[in-house]
């Protein structure tokens, strides 16, 4: 498989001067784990190729993914008694002694110019059985993605729900101050790697929203002396201005089928929720009140929209049929309930719940009306569900800086996402 001809080999050398390892824009720390997390050993993958070591550390990426979910407790490499990378060498008894329920082994081969094949197997260490095994061809750039795909398969096999490790997150950063202030809308892998700027501006950027197909982002930009809503295609960077009416153009929210955008406009006097048909560009006014109506969120069945309104004196959540009708108040507890986002199964919404001047992320059960507070900060905002519903990403402030955190939907696992610099806010998790 490896090229024996030395001339060919020399020709290939430049290809293997791989780009430097991409700088991680953020690192993720688990601040509070879950009891009863599943023990799993991810053995360093074997490697066959031109270089001494593989371009990425597959096992490290997979172990970090699994650990981050809070559902797994990964065995440190230093505690491993052996590091097999083919099934024939695995002695299950060794792993059982170490208390490992499950074992992942794998290897990667270089098969040609920028071509690789990555294989892995997941074993039940007690039964000595293979639970999953796959082989992936990939280019160098795809190797991190393949690692996340492996994490997804392991997660789904053992937990019974799809993983969300191959997804991405979008967020807004602010760096500098005064005239040097720069706002950026960025996208990174779900583990914080490969941060890329979607847009950089001297004026505020706000409210990023993924299209349901994950190919576009809607956002608010103040670049032309006032807010306007844009939709940008991520691959090309091309964008279109959707709304630039006098007053507020804000809070874009895609309908689940991607054909409509709910948004907040104040062109008719005060902030109301409208729905724009993205094909015809026609606008339909959904709410009519003298109060603030904003922050629309579509129900998963597209039949209703939940929004924030202060029509009762303080901001609370209301629900209105998507075709119009009479809004019904959803939240009764607390001084402040705002910015709803539906869970993937549509049964709950996450929101910002304020009480006595403290703002936290809470879940509202739509059938019972019960509220459960998930976070412990005092300025927590902008909740966003992982597409599998397992985690909620949100913005917080530790008293010194604005940063992102994540909490499991059951409130048990807490993570902190630490960025290199600047303030970070408005995280949104991509769809699958």
């Amino acid at each position, binding site marked *: 498989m490896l090229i024996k001809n030395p001339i060919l080999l020399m020709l290939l050398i430049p290809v293997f001067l791989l780009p430097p390892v991409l700088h991680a824009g953020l690192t993720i720390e688990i601040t509070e784990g879950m009891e009863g997390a599943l023990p799993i050993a991810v053995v360093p993958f074997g490697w066959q190729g031109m270089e001494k070591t593989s371009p990425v550390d597959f096992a490290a990426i997979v172990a970090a993914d699994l650990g981050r979910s809070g559902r797994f407790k990964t065995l440190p490499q230093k505690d491993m008694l052996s590091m097999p990378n083919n099934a024939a060498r695995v002695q299950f008894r060794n792993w059982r002694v170490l208390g490992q329920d499950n074992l992942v082994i794998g290897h990667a081969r270089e098969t040609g110019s920028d071509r690789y094949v990555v294989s892995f197997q997941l074993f039940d260490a007690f039964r000595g059985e293979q639970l999953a095994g796959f082989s992936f061809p990939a280019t160098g750039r795809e190797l991190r993605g393949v690692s996340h795909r492996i994490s997804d398969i392991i997660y789904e096999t053992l937990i019974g729900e799809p993983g969300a490790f191959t997804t991405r997150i979008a967020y807004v950063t602010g760096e500098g101050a005064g005239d040097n202030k720069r706002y950026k809308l960025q996208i990174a892998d779900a583990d914080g790697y490969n941060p890329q700027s979607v847009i950089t501006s001297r004026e*505020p950027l706000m409210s990023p929203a993924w299209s349901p197909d994950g190919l576009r982002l809607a956002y608010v930009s103040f670049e032309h002396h006032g807010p306007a809503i844009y939709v940008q295609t991520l691959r090309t960077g091309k964008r279109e201005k959707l709304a630039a009416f006098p007053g507020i153009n*804000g809070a874009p929210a895609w309908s689940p089928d991607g054909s409509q955008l709910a948004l907040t406009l104040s062109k008719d006097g005060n*902030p109301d929720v409208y729905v724009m048909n993205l094909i015809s560009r026609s606008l339909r006014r959904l709410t009519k009140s003298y109060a603030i109506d904003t922050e629309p969120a579509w129900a998963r069945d597209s039949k209703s929209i939940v929004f924030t309104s202060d029509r009762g004196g303080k901001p609370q959540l209301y629900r209105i049929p998507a075709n119009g009708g009479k809004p019904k108040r959803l939240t009764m507890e607390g001084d*402040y309930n705002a*910015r709803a986002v539906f869970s993937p199964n549509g049964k709950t919404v996450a929101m910002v719940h304020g009480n006595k001047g403290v703002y936290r992320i809470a879940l509202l059960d739509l059938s019972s009306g019960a509220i459960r507070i998930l976070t412990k900060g005092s300025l927590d905002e902008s909740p966003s569900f992982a597409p599998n519903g397992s985690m909620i990403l949100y913005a917080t402030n530790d008293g010194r800086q604005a940063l992102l955190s994540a909490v499991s939907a059951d409130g048990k696992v807490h993570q902190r996402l630490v960025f290199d610099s600047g303030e970070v*806010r408005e995280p949104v998790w991509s769809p699958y």
Partner: protein
Amino acid sequence: MKRLNRVVVLAFIISTLGACSLFKTNGQDGAGDGTSGPDADGVTTQGIEAGGEFMGIETKGPGGSRDRYQGEKPWNDPQSPLYNTVVYFEFDSSTVELAYENLIATHAEYLAAHPDLNVIMEGHADERGTREYNIALGEQRANGVAKMMKLQGVGDVQIKVISYGEEKQVAFDHNETGWSQNRRVEIKYPQ
């Protein structure tokens, strides 16, 4: 809405007063109402370069107010009653406090006398609560001040309202000291 009614009633009172005595605000000097709020420590200069453009050219506004507004851009002159350009608000409120009626009347009078002059009315909120709700809150605050000015004779086209919500903070303490400085409307004259 109750809140809105209050603004309208207040605006009406001010506009009536303004009509009766154009120079009611004469007593106000550089240390007027704008700095008597919760934040007298220089925040009002945010974003405004003071002094540099002072040209010393006398302008004549209608009603003989020539002595009060000297220079080409009197809002940049710390001695001018137009120098105070910030109105502050209570938490989650867009009610314009009575303490700011003189400040608003002063600007309204000047703008009404200079119909070719346009300003941007920037609405802001503190960091608490959600970002888009704060955009809406900032707009209500700016609209409240704009409405009062229009009732005092400022033309519709002279005021453009932009709300930045909590996106452009001037104070960064995560407590009432910082928050009270961020809950504001800034009257922005051309620079």
